[in-house]
């Protein structure tokens, strides 16, 4: 089992004919099936990378029964692409695009919440994220596929791309596979939070432990700690980046900023530790820490 995506997923790529969309779609297709269609206005009726391209997401949904969308559309048009996918009834929208105005995300979030309240099944992951991979089955994103190991007991959820690769690689090198790896993105308003993904991992039989990677800014990690305390039975390991970041500066990610005395590193660590989450201080020791406790649990 896995969360969000599996080998039955049928994905449409919005912006498949653009340079980033084309390059990464090809990599995804090499990793496994999953992408069955593309959507680019004006390119309908053509084939790209061996899959049919449609003018609209609605056309892709009716012709190819897609249930997920992967978005590589440039920032000025990305909100519209998400609204289109939502309106077409796509259940999972994964937005890779970086640099989307925050107000656009507020509007997208409002639309998605409205649809949910009406009973539509819909979830957004991202934006500004590496995507989602269920190793050994399907890759929908820009992460390097080979660093992952399929069929494993550890789920990962992270606000950062390369930091996730680092953690995944440490696990894979120690022979520990991953159930699903989810990049929720580094923007201030995210479609899915750490908490949303923890909830899915808690319900997933294949996932036995979770690695949570956070960073400074906002309060998503504190909320995840609260969720863990109330609803989680599986062990969670956390690493939070940004201990040395100065306040008031955006550390690359739009969401990674310590504002008005909140979003700081120490508060997040304290909140996580207080509820019993294993906090890893040294980034290089994530894999080792998980390996140690997993083997201890197996021998016990």
């Amino acid at each position: 089992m896995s969360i969000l995506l599996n080998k039955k997923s049928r994905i449409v790529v919005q912006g498949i004919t653009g340079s980033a969309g084309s390059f990464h779609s090809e990599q995804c297709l090499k990793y496994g099936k999953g992408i069955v269609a593309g959507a680019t206005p004006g390119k309908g009726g053509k084939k790209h990378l061996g899959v049919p391209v449609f003018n609209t997401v609605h056309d892709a949904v009716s012709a190819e029964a897609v249930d997920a969308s992967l978005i590589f559309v440039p920032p000025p048009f990305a909100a519209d692409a998400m609204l289109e996918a939502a309106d077409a009834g796509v259940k999972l929208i994964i937005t890779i695009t970086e640099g989307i105005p925050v107000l656009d995300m507020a509007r997208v979030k409002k639309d998605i919440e409205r649809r949910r309240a009406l009973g539509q099944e819909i979830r957004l992951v991202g934006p500004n994220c590496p995507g989602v991979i269920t190793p050994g089955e399907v890759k929908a994103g820009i992460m390097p596929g080979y660093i992952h190991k399929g069929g494993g007991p550890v789920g990962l959820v992270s606000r950062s791309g390369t930091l996730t690769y680092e953690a995944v690689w440490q696990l894979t090198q120690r022979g520990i596979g991953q159930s699903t790896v989810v990049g929720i993105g580094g923007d201030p308003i995210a479609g899915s939070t750490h908490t949303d993904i923890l909830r899915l991992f808690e319900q997933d039989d294949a996932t036995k432990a979770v690695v949570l990677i956070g960073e400074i800014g906002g309060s998503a990690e504190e909320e995840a700690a609260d969720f863990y305390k109330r609803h989680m039975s599986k062990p969670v390991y956390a690493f939070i980046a940004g201990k040395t970041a100065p306040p008031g500066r955006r550390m690359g990610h739009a969401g990674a900023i310590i504002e008005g005395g909140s979003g700081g590193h120490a508060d997040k660590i304290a909140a996580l530790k207080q509820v019993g989450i294993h906090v890893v201080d040294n980034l290089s020791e994530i894999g080792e820490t998980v390996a140690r406790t997993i083997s201890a649990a197996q021998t016990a």
Partner: protein
Amino acid sequence: MKLLEYESKDIFRAYGIPVPPTGGVIKDAGKLPNAIKKAGKGPWVLKAQVLAGGRGKGGGVKLAKTPKDAREIAKKMVGMTLITHQTGPEGLLVKEVLVDKASDISREIYFSIVMDRKSGKPTIIASAEGGVEIEVLAKERPSAILKMPVDPDRGLEAYQGRRLAYALDIPNDRVLDFVKMATKLVKVFLDLDASLVEVNPLIITPKNELIALDAKIVTDDNALFRQESLAERRDPEITALEREAKEVGLSYIALDGNIGCMVNGAGLAMGTMDTVSLAGGSPANFLDVGGGANEEQVTRALQIILKDKKVTAVLVNIFGGIMRCDTIAKGVIAAAKKVKLKLPLIVRLEGTNVKEGKALLRKSGLAMEQADSLWEAAQKAVAAAGGAR
């Protein structure tokens, strides 16, 4: 990007939001007589235009009762280094001073609009106890703070404005004025793609007039493509080096330490800084070379890191994903040769084709140390930079 008080007030004025009569900003004390003439009858307030809070306590806001007082204050203020709790010990140079007509105050209110990350909605934060530091108030007496989410498409509804007005105890005959003012402030927030619009304090005068006595706007850099008037503005907060990096597509932030860091990805870049610090060293910068990390980007990144003269060692930490390690190694070798790197260089590569990448680095003839893990790399960098601090 943060706007200065007078820039924010100019925007307020254009939206019909009441601000005090002003004489404008002066860049030298000689221009003061004109400014006070324009502002009208005294007394006046002279306010240092720097991007930091706590100006009053630091001596950056002064009341002048007579033209002579105003001249003396202006002479001292223009060119002073203002230190507040937000500037750090080095302070900020005051280049411009705003000259406003002083207002009589009977009450101060706190009013701001922020983008609330959790709910994903623009949210009004207000308190009947204005003129204070809102962060302090939030910690000490959270019940004194009102929060009201606003629809990102429709803005403030009139009934929401009225609820706020009554909760803030606005005088009955001014409730409609307050609703108008709050609606316009929300409109500024939405129109400008702001992440913060703050009025602290919003005052009520003895004649029951409502005035935005101070103004602060922070805008969203991601929206600059559709904010033409802001796009041309230079961000005064970033250093020349940071600006240079930005122009070539690098995300760079200067820090105080001596170990230059070059990393791909913002999260890993922060994680690398933290690891250097954990190993007893001190990072000189945050630098994200981006996902590409090709020869050109690596060269530019090295050039920028080396312009910081505090740097005594360089740590390169690249996780090769789609971009393979052998390609990255070639980039690092070419860049190190091109910039004639003399400082100790520690490289940690991981990911696709890592063996080939490491072999290329070994054979390059460049003086460098390689590391297998980030922890090892950080320890080597700290040793090369002259040991732990």
